């Protein structure tokens, strides 16, 4: 590794000062004269047809400027999922419809002078509903005679609407039937995972207005500004050129904002009123109307030989996408494509059905199908190792994918269509396991007696992987220009959602140009002023957007050298850029500023370059998660005193921020494991739509966290980087569940593992 000045350093966030001083940075931090407040009337019923809707009393209210129902807006089937075009998700959604499919589904929208007036207007909309039977149980969603959720004729790309089947996936590599014949031990188990919500602290918020040229400005908290522009243009039937999407700072996204959740309806209200309109979800609306992780039932069958070689693995998944199918097949595809190939079994099979329910809509969520799959797979692997009396680390090392391997299953599964084979060019998993084991004290603790007292301790492990961008799909653009003082404007479509990507991308540019970080002025995510980028998802920003930045910076550096060569009377290829200067072969140098001034005023040239980047492969980061638990046998409470995450992320561009990604992912993973579940009552209403009843981890709930960055050199990544943001969430649930087994000898195959379940299992164990 060559000497680096900016990449690999624990530098401060480039936008940190404004955040730590509370400057105006977020969507809502703007004052617009004449701003109206938009509110959405949510359905009180899980499944109903609107027989009659009367908005006259609402419209008559003083201060109400618009009331929209399905009669007032274009009927354009679409998906709200923010994905590259053509979207792999079904077109089953309408801005407003005459049918509602979950509690909270849009019935109408209003724009009014104040929030109080808008809320009063909602109460004055008279709706006559024909209540339909609600489909709430995924196990029975496809049963004959069950109500059909999408009976509209104009939706497209739904696999079998009559059976409430949004999509399915069936792929086999080798033959699992043949594989199981070779197995000495076969285990079959069933696992269940809950609806988890993103619970970003800034709710969904958007402000729309028409500028002086009558163009629609959408200022929104989104991970996908360019997809939003395309989607809104299609839904409102206006040209893309009439829309500008601006993403200010985002108060957390985690996949929940990889979705056009409210931009379309807010834009429609702005067009209807010709006034600025803001829609901001309340926390309760967030819980009812935003997105969730897909709940799944997973049935796994795994076969191994006596020596611990995995020969076959068959995973069958039933998943619920809620009322609409955004990210339905792609999330579930990931459950197969990023989970099964972790082990080199020659016979792999993935079967999956994704059903509609009259329930809150699922969508993208950090991990994107992997937390479900890895909870099941890593729990079962632990059980198999236990049966074989093998150390679970040894079993994993024996079977895990390694450098030089080609994963063919991910090619079969792709991203909604056949993809590209994945070649493992870097893999630090063995080092993750050894370093993680040392940090948790595996050898001493694993075999230590569990004790017979009230508190029992145990340790557990899980291995996981993810991707770095979507192979052959994700792409990004970047643009650089020099200023007179030797600073550079870096314009990227990439979307910093709090992850620190603005900082990482600026570091890559600074390193490549040989300038200090403060010479890079990054501006991101504005569809008028930055190049295209698919957005922040699929762990793509560092590798894909970073790749574009590196290319653009290399081209700009070449240009700088061409002009500096004239000044230094040397050949451009002899020059090096370093310390904000350009050095000739003799050691003579000019400053970047001098080059800029020479180019501007002598040569009449703006030094500027742009570049695009995509990859045909998605290098996986690897992760080993180790958990120590303490089970209170009197209360059933599972506490996690220590959690260790060792991650192979390629090269860390900013190790401090990378650690932050791990620690945040782990906090969400702990919630998923022990507490978080969006609970629906018998009518499909969210029963815990607040932070008291939907528990996310607070400062006092968190265990001691140890984060270990295991660096490898990834040939496809800028400066060797892969990705970090998603992979650490995947292993928390299985590591904790495996540790609980180590502590009390009971397997928990349903998340979250709450005290009532633990207590019931302990009583059942005692009764045996």
């Amino acid at each position, binding site marked *: 590794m060559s000497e680096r000045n900016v990449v690999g350093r624990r530098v401060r966030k480039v936008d940190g000062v404004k955040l730590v001083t509370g400057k105006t940075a977020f969507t809502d931090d703007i004052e617009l004269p004449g701003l109206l407040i938009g509110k959405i009337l949510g359905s009180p019923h899980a499944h109903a047809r609107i027989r009659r809707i009367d908005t006259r009393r609402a419209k008559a209210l003083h201060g109400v400027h618009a009331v929209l129902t399905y009669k007032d807006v274009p009927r354009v089937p679409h998906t709200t999922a923010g994905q590259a075009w053509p979207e792999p998700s079904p077109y089953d959604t309408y801005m407003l419809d005459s049918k509602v499919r979950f509690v909270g589904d849009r019935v109408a929208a209003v724009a009014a002078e104040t929030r109080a007036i808008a809320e009063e207007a909602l109460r004055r909309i008279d709706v006559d509903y024909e209540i339909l039977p609600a489909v709430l149980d995924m196990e029975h969603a496809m049963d004959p005679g069950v109500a059909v959720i999408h009976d509209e004729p104009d939706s497209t790309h739904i696999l079998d609407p009559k059976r409430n089947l949004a999509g399915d996936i069936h792929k086999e590599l080798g033959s699992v039937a043949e594989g199981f014949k070779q197995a000495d031990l076969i285990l079959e188990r069933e696992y269940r995972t809950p609806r988890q919500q993103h619970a970003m602290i800034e709710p969904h918020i958007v402000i729309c207005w028409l500028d002086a040229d009558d163009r629609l400005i959408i200022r929104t908290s989104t991970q996908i500004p360019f997809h939003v522009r395309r989607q809104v243009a299609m839904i409102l039937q206006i040209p893309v050129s009439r829309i500008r999407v601006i993403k200010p700072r985002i108060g*957390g996204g985690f996949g929940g904002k990889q979705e056009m959740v409210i931009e379309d309806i807010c834009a429609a209200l702005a067009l209807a009123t010709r006034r600025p309109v803001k829609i901001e979800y309340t926390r309760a609306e967030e819980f009812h109307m935003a997105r969730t992780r897909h709940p799944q039932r997973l049935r796994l069958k795994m076969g191994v030989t006596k020596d611990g070689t995995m020969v076959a693995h068959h995973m069958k998944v039933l998943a619920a996408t809620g009322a609409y199918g955004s990210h339905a097949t792609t999330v579930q595809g990931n459950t197969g494509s990023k989970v099964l190939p972790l082990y080199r079994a020659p016979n792999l099979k993935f079967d999956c059905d994704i059903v509609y329910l009259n329930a809150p809509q699922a969508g993208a969520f950090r991990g994107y199908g992997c937390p479900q799959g890895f909870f099941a797979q890593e729990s079962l692997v632990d059980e198999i190792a236990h049966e074989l009396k093998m150390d679970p680390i040894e079993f994993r090392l024996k079977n895990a994918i390694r450098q030089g391997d080609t994963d063919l299953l991910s090619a079969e599964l792709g991203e909604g269509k056949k993809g590209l084979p994945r070649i493992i060019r870097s893999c630090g998993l063995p080092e993750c396991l050894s370093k993680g084991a040392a940090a948790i004290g595996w050898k001493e603790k694993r075999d230590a007696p569990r004790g017979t007292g009230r508190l029992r301790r145990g340790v557990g492990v899980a291995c996981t992987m993810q991707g770095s961008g979507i192979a052959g799909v994700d792409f990004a653009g970047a643009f650089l220009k020099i200023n007179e003082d030797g600073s550079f404007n870096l314009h990227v479509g990439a979307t910093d959602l709090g992850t620190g990507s603005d900082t990482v991308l600026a570091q890559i540019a600074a390193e490549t140009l040989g300038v200090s970080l403060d010479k890079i002025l990054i501006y991101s995510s504005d569809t008028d002023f930055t190049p295209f980028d698919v957005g922040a998802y699929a762990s793509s920003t560092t590798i894909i957007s970073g790749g574009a930045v590196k290319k653009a910076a290399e081209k700009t550096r070449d240009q700088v050298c061409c002009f500096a060569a004239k000044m230094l009377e040397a050949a451009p290829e002899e020059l090096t850029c370093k310390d904000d200067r350009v050095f000739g072969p003799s050691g003579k140098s000019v400053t970047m500023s001098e080059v800029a001034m020479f180019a501007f005023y002598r040569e009449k040239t703006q030094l500027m370059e742009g570049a695009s980047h995509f990859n045909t492969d998605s290098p996986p980061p690897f992760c080993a998660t180790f958990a120590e638990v303490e089970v209170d046998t009197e209360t059933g409470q599972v506490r996690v005193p220590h959690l260790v995450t060792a991650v192979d992320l390629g090269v860390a561009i900013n190790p401090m921020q990378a650690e932050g990604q791990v620690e945040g992912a782990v906090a969400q993973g702990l919630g998923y494991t022990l507490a978080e579940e969006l609970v629906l009552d018998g009518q499909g209403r969210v029963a815990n739509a607040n*932070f008291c009843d939907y528990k996310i981890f607070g400062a006092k709930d*968190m265990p001691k966290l140890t984060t270990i960055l295991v660096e490898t050199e990834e040939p496809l990544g800028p400066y060797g980087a892969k990705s970090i943001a998603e992979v650490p969430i995947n292993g928390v649930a299985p590591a904790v569940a495996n540790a609980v087994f180590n502590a009390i000898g009971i397997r928990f195959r349903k998340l979250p593992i709450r005290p009532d379940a633990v207590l019931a299992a302990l009583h059942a164990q005692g009764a045996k």
Partner: protein
Amino acid sequence: MSDLIVHVTVNGEARRWRVEPGDLLLDVLRREGLWGVKRGCETGECGACAVLLDGEPINSCLMFAAQADGRELLTIEGVADGEKLHPVQEAFLDHGAVQCGYCTPAMVLCAKELLERSPKPTEAEVREALSGVLCRCTGYKKPVEAILAAAAAAPKTRGKTARRRRAAR
């Protein structure tokens, strides 16, 4: 509804607000240009709207603006001394404690209040001080490290006397 006149001191400056009886302190603060006060739930659960009221952290979404009459408020905008950041703010930047930044103002205010009351806190005390602020990005590790580092770097004697903790807390 008739308007009320409220006299408050905000970040050391006397202010006169015209409010309606039902206006939340959160809404009035933002309306008055103090954008660092954030809205996360409006039910006192997330803590993103925390400000210091007479030196004590409170959720501004759970208080009417009128209730602040005659009292002293500190928001994130008043924490730095001009361009000179507060040591907690510097530590947040140095330790990577800021991710999305949405809960950061509330965390910084709670940390500042803690360090004035208890200049050399234990980790448990830091976590207690942050327990009213939900953060979905950081896992709290780096914010806790930042606050402990700010405390460790501070000179032993601090200007302000420790405030007595409310019995209820």
